[in-house]
């Protein structure tokens, strides 16, 4: 059994025109010390997935069904008091924009000490020395002075280091990092990512990395999920997916990377844009943008329009696509015929 098991997670937003389903039937798992990437365009539901793990979705969002089992404990339906013992303690988060994540009117020290004191019965002095230690681990220059500084006195990169230090404060089992480097200068993105990776490896902390950057995912994570319109459409070992993507959407994402384009030609892009969650196309949500709705012989695959695709396994990967299912099927039938 994995450390974290998410099954059939269903998250909705109660809006005026009725519920909008932000996550449908999301399943994944995470082993101790494993690093998992969640990829997708903005609006695909990556952040909602991250926030729903700790039940931090803001109203009008709510978890409508499914299960989140963490270290043998079911988190959905847990009281706020018990959930608080998990938050920041066993599972902590790193947010996207370090400029907005720290409270501007409290010192760095106050924001670190309060987190320790919320979970452990320790004195302020002990808490400060632990905080200092963590600040040293994230390689902040003159960490002692930082404890009494306010966030606005630190640069964006330094603030993200502080946030990583806070996330590591109680030696959690899992860190959920929601686009931790997107808001930073390009020059320090790699630095911060390397630091995060190093600390996770050193302390054997599991990492759920949410990003739209396939390059980062391929370097950092062992397994990955690809999300589209609130669903997981492909998952498996990162290396295999990057090298041999099954789902047409994943293929599109990888082909759209600048390094995949031949020099001098235009960048490859997926035509169209992601549909609005309140108005999803029927069948496979990707079919209006998919180049493979028509088979190679020119006939249309009706299932793409009518049926939501199920996961099919191909090697170590799983993809939710009628085309992939058909291909596997056609490979198997000749094999069976040979057997006969």
């Amino acid at each position: 059994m994995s450390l974290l098991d998410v099954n059939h997670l269903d998250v909705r937003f109660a809006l005026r025109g009725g519920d909008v389903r932000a996550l449908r039937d999301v399943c994944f798992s995470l082993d101790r010390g494993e690093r998992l990437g969640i990829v997708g365009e903005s609006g695909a539901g990556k952040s909602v997935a991250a926030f729903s793990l700790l039940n931090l979705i803001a109203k009008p969002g709510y978890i409508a069904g499914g299960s989140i089992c963490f270290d043998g404990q079911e988190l959905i339906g847990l009281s706020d008091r018990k959930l608080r013992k998990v938050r920041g303690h066993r599972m902590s988060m790193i947010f996207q924009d370090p400029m907005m994540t720290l409270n501007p009117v409290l010192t760095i020290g106050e924001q670190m000490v309060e987190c320790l004191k919320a979970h452990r019965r320790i004195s302020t002095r002990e808490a400060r020395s632990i905080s200092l230690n963590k600040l040293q681990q994230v390689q902040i220059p003159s960490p002692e002075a930082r404890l009494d500084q306010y966030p606005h006195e630190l640069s964006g990169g330094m603030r993200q280091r502080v946030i990583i230090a806070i996330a590591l404060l109680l030696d959690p089992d899992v860190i959920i990092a929601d686009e931790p480097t997107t808001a930073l200068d390009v020059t320090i993105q790699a630095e911060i990512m390397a630091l995060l990776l190093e600390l996770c490896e050193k302390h054997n902390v599991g990492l759920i990395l949410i990003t739209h950057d396939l390059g980062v995912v391929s370097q950092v994570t062992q397994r990955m999920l690809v999300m589209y319109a609130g669903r997981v459409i492909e998952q498996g070992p990162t290396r295999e997916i990057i090298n041999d993507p099954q789902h047409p959407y994943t293929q599109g994402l990888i082909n759209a990377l600048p390094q995949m384009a031949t020099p001098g030609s235009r960048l490859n892009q997926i035509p169209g844009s992601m549909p609005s969650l309140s108005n999803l196309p029927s069948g496979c949500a990707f079919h209006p943008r998919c180049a493979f709705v028509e088979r190679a012989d020119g006939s249309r695959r009706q299932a793409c329009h009518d049926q939501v695709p199920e996961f099919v396994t191909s090697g170590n990967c799983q993809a939710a696509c009628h085309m992939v299912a058909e291909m596997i099927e056609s490979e198997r039938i000749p094999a069976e015929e040979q057997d006969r």
Partner: protein
Amino acid sequence: MIAFLIKRLFHALLVMFVISVIAFAIQDNLGDPIQQMVGQSVPESEREALREELGLNDPFLVQYLRFAVNAAHFDFGYSYVFNQPTTDVVLRHLPATLELVAAATFLIIVLSVPIGVYSAIKPRAWLSRFFMGVSIVGISIPVFLTAIVLIQLFAIGVSWTPFPADTGWGAWLNDLITTEGGMPAYGRGDPVPVFGTWETNFASLEGLSYLVLPAISLASIMLPLFIRLIRAEMLEVLQSDYVKFARAKGISPRRIYFLHALKNTMLPVITVGGVQIGTLVAYTILTETVFQWPGMGLMFLDAIERSDIPLIVTYLMIVGLIFVITNTLVDLIYGLINPTVKLTGKPA
């Protein structure tokens, strides 16, 4: 911090300069001190001599400078009506107004913060909706009408029996809408002398009873504004990333609401609200008129009615000074609470 202070001080001086120009223009164009000093019967030649002697024929700038120098010494001449230095007259009325404003401010702060915070934390609770409903009605009632209704209810009393008195619920409802009256609603009573011309209503229960109705009506203008302001700011802060991050850290809701959120909420509330408290002085004109509270506002209205120009000018200058002082104080407090303001004074 020093640079910040100097900047604020410069701003304050600029505002006082503008006010003094306006005040001087009023005095120069509307007041005729000769008329007040000697009356109608004196021949024109003598008036002209007196005018020359008093420097009233000097160029505008010279006259303004004289006015400004005197103003800096709080010397605005004599009141026509009281025949005393106007500064003395205004200062005699000042404590009554300041006490009224202080009592109203106390009510506003004590009530608006908990109500505003509560209705932001639980925006859908029926109590929050009730507070919001009451506050929009409160904004729509002019202060003098609140005062009049309070007088009718608690000073004069209402005996109204629209429900059948022979049934239990009828009698109970009748009791509910019938009020005793008897609260003092006229003047200050007998305030206790403290120091010089300062007499206080805070020193005795009887004095406080005179303060109750005027203070409530004065507070009634700003209270709904403050509740709505605090609620709106708090709602915004509760949406912020740092509050979400605090929740992700596993901090208790109480600490998130009352430390993380409230401290950030109070920053804009102090800037907007502090200035509003200053403008309460303006609203005392209305409250004091209704309750015949012998403060500056009543005095000012009297001065307008009797065209006591020096007294009007003095009132404007002193009220202007009060506004400037409150604004500067508010900025200072803001600077002390908001860490991002202190940029200049931080040791490197």
